[in-house]
């Protein structure tokens, strides 16, 4: 999507095109993401409708809650659920419901899907957001350090440790942490996001309790996310170390910190930020597992229950919500991308 071109004169641009230029790429990016979201929403709509089977077939069983006993009753039920309308008009009302923030009714929990998700979204955002922030910080500094000491002990051990944590799936990591630090050595709580029925004397106490419960899930998620970005930062920084400007900076007698972070580390920011966008998806995916293991009250546990009950409206709502979160994160990344590095130009 981005093309790194070194500055080249753009002679052919007519003046009015030059004025449009600053906005056009942003609009195009936003348009692409809107297109992706539309494609996903449409996929979710058509998927169950093109599956073999009939949504009312189960109700023809005399034991079902809403027994369909003859053709007229069948038509009445189909009309109630809008299943007698043509697919296009079903699709239209689906889209307009989504625009109003209506995600339908959860079958298993007998509540509006939107209500269920609203309660749980903040916890997932807290978990994934802090995991992304923490893993970014760790991997950036570890990456620069490893590159600086490349080939030596610090570098090699960082590579081994972080590659090993990447190979461990989140649920395995989470269960290992749970067994170690909540069961064998019960330092941290096994489940939940807060003490049950807690009343806090001060907001500070509340924050401490939330952080205490967040610690293990956050660690499990962070370890999985850190390795990838670490390798990217390390390799980019190594490739800058031989550059002329590094030699010059060293010759100027700049401090080691400036050399490390301002001159070489900064060059690793661009691929690092790209990886961050892709990792937003991984973080959301990983949070599904971690939340399930620690019974954390976020979207992940909701999804797990929805899968267990085959509660399709709930599952569909959660998917659309998570897709929006991931796409927004990617969009932000891509829009800041151009700001960060003046060398990036759009075709």
């Amino acid at each position: 999507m981005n093309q790194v071109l070194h500055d080249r004169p753009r002679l052919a641009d007519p003046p009015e095109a030059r004025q449009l230029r600053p906005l056009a790429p942003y609009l195009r990016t936003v348009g692409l993401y809107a297109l992706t979201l539309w494609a996903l929403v449409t996929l979710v709509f058509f998927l169950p409708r093109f599956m073999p089977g009939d949504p009312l077939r189960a109700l023809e069983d005399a034991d079902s809650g809403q027994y369909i006993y003859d053709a007229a009753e069948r038509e009445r039920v189909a009309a109630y659920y809008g299943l007698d309308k043509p697919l296009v008009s079903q699709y239209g009302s689906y889209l307009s419901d989504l625009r109003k923030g209506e995600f339908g009714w959860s079958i298993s929990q007998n509540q509006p899907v939107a209500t269920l998700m609203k309660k749980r979204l903040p916890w997932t955002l807290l978990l994934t957001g802090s995991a992304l922030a923490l893993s970014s910080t760790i991997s950036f500094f570890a990456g620069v350090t490893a590159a600086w000491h490349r080939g030596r002990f610090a570098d090699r051990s960082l590579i081994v440790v972080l590659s090993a944590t990447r190979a461990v799936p989140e649920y395995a990591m989470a269960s290992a942490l749970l067994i170690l630090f909540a069961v064998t050595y019960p330092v941290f709580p096994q489940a939940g996001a807060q003490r049950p029925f807690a009343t806090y004397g001060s907001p500070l106490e509340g924050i401490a309790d939330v952080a205490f419960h967040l610690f293990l899930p956050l660690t499990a998620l962070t370890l999985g996310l850190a390795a990838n970005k670490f390798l990217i930062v390390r390799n980019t920084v190594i490739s800058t170390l031989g550059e002329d400007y590094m030699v010059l900076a060293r010759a100027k007698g700049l401090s080691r910190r400036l050399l490390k972070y301002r001159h070489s580390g900064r060059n690793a920011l661009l691929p690092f930020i790209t990886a961050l966008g892709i990792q937003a998806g991984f973080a959301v995916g990983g949070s599904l597992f971690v939340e399930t293991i620690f019974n954390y009250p976020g979207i992940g546990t909701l999804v797990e229950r929805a899968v267990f009950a085959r509660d399709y409206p709930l599952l569909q709502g959660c998917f659309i919500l998570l897709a929006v979160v991931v796409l927004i994160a990617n969009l932000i990344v891509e829009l800041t991308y151009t700001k960060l590095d003046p060398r990036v130009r759009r075709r």
Partner: protein
Amino acid sequence: MTATTTTCVPVPEPVAPRRRTHIAGTVGGLIIGFYFVLLLFGSRLAPFRATELAGSSLASPGGAYRLGTNLLGQDILSQLILGARASLLVALIAGVGTVLLGGIVGVVAGWFPGWFDAVLMRVTDLVLVVPKLPLLLLVGALTGGSVLGLSVVISLLFWPNAARILRSQVLSLRTRTHVRAATGFGAGTWHQLRRHILPDLALLSVAEFIPAAGRAVGLQAGLAFLGVGDPTVPSWGGMIRDAVNFSGLFITPAWKWWLAPPVIALVALIVGITLLGAAAERRLSPRLARHTR
């Protein structure tokens, strides 16, 4: 080579390029070989059937039940051995599918530049940002999540990485002299692809296949863990799910033989694939390995 003749300077013995033995690759290969033995002979090695109620509930390891039993009294060792099947089949099918799809898109996009390439690459960008696990859960919950079905969906979601790498390789191959010469002799597209492009992509495809297979193993187990998959087909993810869902797991010592073995089996397989992949990447695509050596 030794300085027997009357040369003024003793010519040093040329140092033979030391062939790096890939310990990582060997270990990875051994691990995966072991799992393939389980895949091929699992039904003969396992003492019980996976769903068979073999003994009393939560029997500790020993006697007929080498690794104990779960809450229902099913033999853990048998489930563990038979669970290798699901993981390895997904690794193979989804790995091949991912590389195949990515290869088709990459070769077509690389060989036909212009708007066709541009459209294909935009589609690649779109698929790249799709939140994959939630979508897999959704489709899996709808279709029942058979091993084959999951592999197909995984392939459909994860091809963009392979497509990008293979496309850039095709783009670079197009400019090589032997390809240009063939074009000069009037070679057609099909001949070019078969004789000059595809053989050069084979090694790179293997380097793409291994991580794709590893990812598929993790995904299949993860989906089974979240409840997508046939509960009668033994899988490590499903075992972990059963164990974690047992509310008394950590009150009893049962987690030691119920939760730990599938986790270890799974992590060992993924580590094995990762090690093999690292070795293969060094061997097959030296461009990537230069910095990590």
